[in-house]
């Protein structure tokens, strides 16, 4: 029998990951760490766009989809901010600099930074670890400052200790012209002289002009009330973007887990505009 040559037309299957080496770990909060990942030979594993995700895996332990929190304008590495909340994330938190993991991706669509968001005044609304996917966009916007209008970042968490990326927020975002940061925590805390209160109520207090384009990510309950608040301020669904998180295995729209209606969140999302969200069955 002749040698088969049909495989020459295939590239390596997308389910086969690359090896990533952890080159830095930052303890952001008691239960969130940010992992810096490089290719073993140095440099980035792949190029991505803000809002895209990747499958991160500890072989033998588990694999899950995480948003890439670093901006594509960062030419040296990718970062993932990961909250400790299950078997895989417990294991990831036990890893050290120099340990290897596997990564495959990038998967999904991205926030439309080069099209619909361009030239717009932007309002980012994040709660807790929900800042992770938005951070990629925020840093992209900061690095391409001239392409966008004013930037407002409303970010809240349970306590001052649970705010992720605080150093970058204080040292970079707060000091960038045209970027206004509004932080809030749920309850009074010693040493905190900033705003206290839930994100949705702070949103209403701040009375943002309703001509902004909004990017929101956080716990479902926060998103629900943020949307109500935005509606009250006169925002339309077409101005609001969010990113979904569902159980995923393949990342390429085949394994069936993240199927909602005729969409696959891993492939058609994770970024959706709210008028698109409204067309989906309520199963997210």
């Amino acid at each position, binding site marked *: 029998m002749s040698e088969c040559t*049909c495989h020459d037309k295939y590239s390596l299957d997308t*389910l086969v990951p690359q*090896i990533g080496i952890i080159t830095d770990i930052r303890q952001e909060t008691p239960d969130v760490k940010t992992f810096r990942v490089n290719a073993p030979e140095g440099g980035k594993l792949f190029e991505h766009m803000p809002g895209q995700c990747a499958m991160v895996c500890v072989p*033998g332990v588990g694999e899950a989809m995480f948003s890439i929190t670093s901006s594509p304008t960062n030419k040296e590495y990718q970062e993932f901010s990961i909250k400790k909340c299950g078997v895989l994330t417990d294991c990831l938190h036990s890893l050290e600099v120099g340990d290897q993991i596997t990564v495959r991706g990038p998967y999904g669509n991205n926030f439309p930074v080069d099209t619909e968001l361009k030239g717009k005044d932007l309002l980012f609304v994040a709660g807790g670890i929900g800042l992770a996917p938005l951070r990629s966009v925020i840093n992209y916007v900061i690095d391409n400052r001239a392409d966008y209008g004013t930037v407002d970042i409303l970010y809240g968490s349970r306590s001052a200790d649970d705010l992720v990326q605080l150093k970058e927020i204080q040292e970079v975002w707060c000091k960038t012209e045209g970027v206004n940061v509004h932080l809030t925590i749920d309850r009074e805390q010693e040493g905190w002289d900033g705003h206290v209160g839930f994100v949705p109520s702070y949103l209403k207090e701040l009375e943002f002009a309703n001509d902004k384009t909004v990017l929101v990510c956080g716990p479902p309950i926060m998103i629900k009330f943020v949307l109500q608040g935005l509606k009250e301020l006169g925002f339309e669904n077409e101005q609001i973007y969010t990113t979904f998180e569902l*159980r995923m295995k*393949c990342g390429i729209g*085949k*394994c069936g887990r993240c199927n909602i209606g*005729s969409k696959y969140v891993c492939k058609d999302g994770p970024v959706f505009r709210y008028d698109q969200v409204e067309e989906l069955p309520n*199963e997210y």
Partner: protein
Amino acid sequence: MYKIAKSNLPELYKAIAGSKELYLPLENAGQVNFGPWSEDCTPDIETLKSVKSPKDVFFPQSENLYTCQKEGKNIKIDPEKLKDQDFVVFGMKSCDVKGVEVLDKVFLADPIDTYYAARRDHGIIVAMACHEPEESCFCKVFGIDAADASSSIADVATWMIGEDLYWKPLTEKGEALTSELSGLLSSDGDENKVEEEKQAITAIINKLPYSDLSLEGWDGDHFEEKFNATNWEELYKPCLACGTCTFVCPTCQCYDIKDYNTGNGTQRYRCWDSCMYSDFTMMAHGNNRNSQMQRFRQRFMHKLVYFPTNNDGMYSCVGCGRCVEKCPASLNIVKVIKNFGGDK
């Protein structure tokens, strides 16, 4: 049109198996399922339906994707070799052939699944007309012709007529296989006999109880109406969430990806999974389909609304009737379609 005496089929199997892997319906412990031919196997091409669909020939119930070795802190990945030898699937019915066409829409869509694609490239499908379709069959509803696989993706169409098997190559692959078997196939098959057989089969199909089910309203335009219908609240109740329907189904393609600890590293494998299972969509922050009603609805909405929305109206049910026969609670897609008024 070629033909071979049925009494000569063991020779045909042997001849095919001489140069290729051959999968065919085999009797084992009272059940018929597709399996690899061997000297001492018991082929059974008279039983109409295998218990499981033959989809696992292209999409195995479990398959390795790669092996991961750890040396100190370093990880080494060794992808599984792709299928590189031709093989023949003998005796697939039109519904199951259509099932492969449905799987193609999933696995060959960009980015293609190379494991599946390699099997499709090397697989030669020899379809067989359904001599006597059964009561649970409703392939006609989906425009599938149990009497003739000529317009399907099969490579060869065959018919069992009297003491002979009639054989008609449909594709280049089918022609090549036919010429390899020229010593066993005679080229004097009577076309008229095949036409008669097709008419006889069609006559049976037209009399089957589910052949007139109507799929009117099962499309993207009626998605909200179907999704929000109160019918689901009652329909799902007997469902045991056992997943039998998804495992016997020729088109169900949901899968899981897992690691197996080999003691010397890990083996990454994928295996069939079921949207009927409660942990299918479970994640650390919750479960977006946390009731059995939602999971039950998902399976049928996917087959009858979501899949056709994404695939030019192609349903991901082929009417093979296996779920009708195997569901321990007598729940099935026919019941769903009828409950929504599809019983003409």
